[in-house]
């Protein structure tokens, strides 16, 4: 259990960022999809730029993780159907609830119990996918 504490702390850090940046607010998600402000685009662009810098440095210097293992960032399977169709369905839910999976739990912590049905829906949707996955185009 003690091994998990660093992950709880990293999650706490992430939760605070999500709340304070307002990326976990329906209002900011609506503003983004209505092109009303640079705010959300700026957050995503800076995060991706910094991530890409880390990725390039990790590959260039063959950096190792804290356990001494080489850092491997797995490639997603090739294809496009599952990414486009799954992405479309996810985007519909993201804009409807104003929350992606992380912020669902950030908002629960902030006291918005209305995120309970969103979390339950997330579980049901995942379960449904697991049941019919082989019938879907990938």
């Amino acid at each position, binding site marked *: 259990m003690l091994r998990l504490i660093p*992950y709880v702390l990293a999650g706490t850090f992430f939760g605070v960022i999500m*709340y304070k940046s307002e990326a976990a607010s329906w209002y900011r998600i609506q503003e983004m999809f209505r092109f009303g402000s640079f705010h959300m685009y700026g957050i995503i662009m800076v995060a991706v730029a910094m991530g890409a810098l880390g*990725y390039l440095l990790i590959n260039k210097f063959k950096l190792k993780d804290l356990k001494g293992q080489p850092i491997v960032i797995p490639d997603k399977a090739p294809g496009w159907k599952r990414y486009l169709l799954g992405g479309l*369905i996810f985007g519909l*839910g993201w804009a409807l609830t104003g929350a992606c999976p992380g912020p669902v739990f950030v908002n629960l912590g*902030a006291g918005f119990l209305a995120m309970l049905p969103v979390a339950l829906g997330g579980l049901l949707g995942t379960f449904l996918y697991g049941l019919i996955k082989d019938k879907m185009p990938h």
Partner: protein
Amino acid sequence: MIEFLTQPWPWWFSGAMIGLTLWLMWFAGKTFGFSGNFRTMCTMCGAGKAANFFAFDWKTQKWNLAFLVGATVGGYLAAHFLSPEGGQIPAIDAGVQGQLQALGFATPAAYQPLEWYGEDWFLGGTLWLLLFGGLLIGFGSRYSGGCTSGHAITGLSSFQLPSLIAVIGFFAGGLFMTHVIYPWLLG
């Protein structure tokens, strides 16, 4: 410093802190992706008996569940100790506020719109709307193999074409919901 932290955080600072989280997870030897937790929780509830997709050792994902618990704690701390009394109220663009008012949403008075996320969320149609929205999120993220953290942050940062396609899907779906379904549903 305290004043900076209790204000809404600017986009450049927030983005850099998300980037830092991604680095931390890489150096911990993990791939950052939040929605996998839904699959893990299905498995913990016994879904492995219903579908092979859930037949895996959920204990390998304990670190991600710990991250989820942390994110919930972070939401609590940010709302109660790093924000004004009653929580942070997003100061969104005035034009967008006008558009939202036309759909029946009052001027922001809380972190989330109280029309949906207020105390009577379990009454009327709101409960079903939120449940349905969650269903789309859960189904879509597993179908596309990731959510905003796994595709938009991790995937784009590591130059993966599938993640770019997924993110284009996220935006196309979000724009359709916002500009076509919202007016139809609420207009």
